């Protein structure tokens, strides 16, 4: 079964008015179960909008979206995806553990099972010692790990991530990338990942979807052929550099890449 299918999806904001913005146009994309796909492109190319369409946070103007074999809306109601944003977005009046429990509360789990699962998820992101801390007592990277634990709490088959490491410093970021791959290994989740960073996309992904702005379109899909386990050595691998070059050249071909400069080369 394919995890996500987008079938000629278009999305306009304020349709029919003079403030109409054509955010996405004729998007066809299918993502296999267990696949790691990154969306990359300059600012305004609609990559976040695309993710929010899959999450059913917004509705498409045209086209059809299937998530885990059902409509995007049904997938949202069934809690079959988890989501993480650039800001951790933790509830500052809840302890770390109770933040992770939140999606379980809304899915109707009882207290004992919630607690057990939350502790399991915090162990997965290596924060089991911080369960009773309050979010403000944690560093940015730790908060983001709590957000990932929260997104994974219901064990959704699909994880949607919108620049989750965008606000972190470079060292923390590389560490978090390695952690994410380890978590993916443990859970087998399909991951759709929006990023501005070419190396991040190449390091993490099976496929990198390159997008262009106004209207948002998919210009190219780059297959990343990294062999073996992805670890720190991968970052110095020839295939890694080849992947970066290929994504960068695809982005250069995108009209407006230079003038917008929305992609960084880190």
């Amino acid at each position, binding site marked *: 079964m394919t995890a996500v299918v987008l079938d000629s999806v278009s999305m306009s904001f304020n349709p029919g008015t003079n403030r109409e913005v054509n955010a996405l146009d004729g998007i066809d994309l299918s993502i296999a179960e267990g696949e790691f796909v990154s969306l990359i492109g300059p600012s305004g190319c609609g990559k976040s909008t695309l993710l929010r369409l899959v999450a059913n946070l917004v509705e498409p103007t045209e086209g059809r979206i299937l998530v885990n074999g059902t409509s995007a809306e049904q997938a949202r109601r069934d*809690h079959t995806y988890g989501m993480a944003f650039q800001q951790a977005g933790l509830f500052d009046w809840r302890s770390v553990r109770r933040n992770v429990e939140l999606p379980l509360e809304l899915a109707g789990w009882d207290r004992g099972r919630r607690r057990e699962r939350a502790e399991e998820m915090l162990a997965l992101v290596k924060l089991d010692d911080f369960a009773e801390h309050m979010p403000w007592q944690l560093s940015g990277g730790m908060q983001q790990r709590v957000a990932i634990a929260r997104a994974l709490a219901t064990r959704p088959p699909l994880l949607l991530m919108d620049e989750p490491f965008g606000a972190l410093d470079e060292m923390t970021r590389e560490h978090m990338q390695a952690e994410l791959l380890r978590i993916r290994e443990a859970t087998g989740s399909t991951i759709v990942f929006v990023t501005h960073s070419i190396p991040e996309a190449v390091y993490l992904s099976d496929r990198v979807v390159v997008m262009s702005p106004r209207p948002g379109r998919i210009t190219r899909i780059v297959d990343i052929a990294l062999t073996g386990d992805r670890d720190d050595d991968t970052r110095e691998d020839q295939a890694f550099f080849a992947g970066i070059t290929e994504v960068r050249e695809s982005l250069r071909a995108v009209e407006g890449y230079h003038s917008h400069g929305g992609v960084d080369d880190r």
Partner: protein
Amino acid sequence: MWGVAFVAAWESLVRGFDLKPYFLPAPTAIWSAFTDNVGLVRAAAFVSGGNALVGLLLGIGLGVAASFALMRSNLLNELVSPLAIALNAIPIIVLVAVFQNMFTSTSEVPRRLMVMLIVFFIVLVNVAKGLRQVSPIHLELMRSYAATPRSVLVKTRIPNAVPYLFTAVKIAAPTAVITAFVSEYFGGRQNGLGYFIPSNFANSKNAVAWAYVIGACLLGLTFYLVSVLLENITSNRRGRAPGGANT
């Protein structure tokens, strides 16, 4: 430190220039008036404090209730919010004269109504803000969990508004005391600090009037400290408190 220096300077000023008690009594004279009349001052403070407390609690209750109504209705919000802000520019304290006229002159109700009204708007503006100004990420998360409107209210909006409520109470508590004093000054029963301070000045019993001023300061301070204490209990756990708006 500064307080001690100030009182010392005051004392020496009164003695050095031989200021007459009807102009400015010395701190020592005020203190002895205070200790001589401590029972009377306490009784008056209880009357004023009672007025302030009853009005404060009613105002908080009504303000919280109204802020929920405001959150649910955009129309209501657009009607009431500018009004609440415009009231800043109007000395609504004069309404106490209207209330005095409505009730018998032996009633405490007009003063309590006045306190309630002023507290009401402070609480309304702040709590409505807390209920509305929820982080967009929290709202998107709740949508991604397919949360019902009720869950969004209980798990997101209300907890978000709690520190706003405490901030409002911190602003409203001293204001309630001041409003009670001023309302008492406007007439009616002659039993509160707001009556005894001006009446003793009028009778040239300045030291006694100042003793009541001490009582008024202590009362205001008590209300403020209790509200700060309440606020600290929540904000310590959260690590921050939002800034509040004065009506």
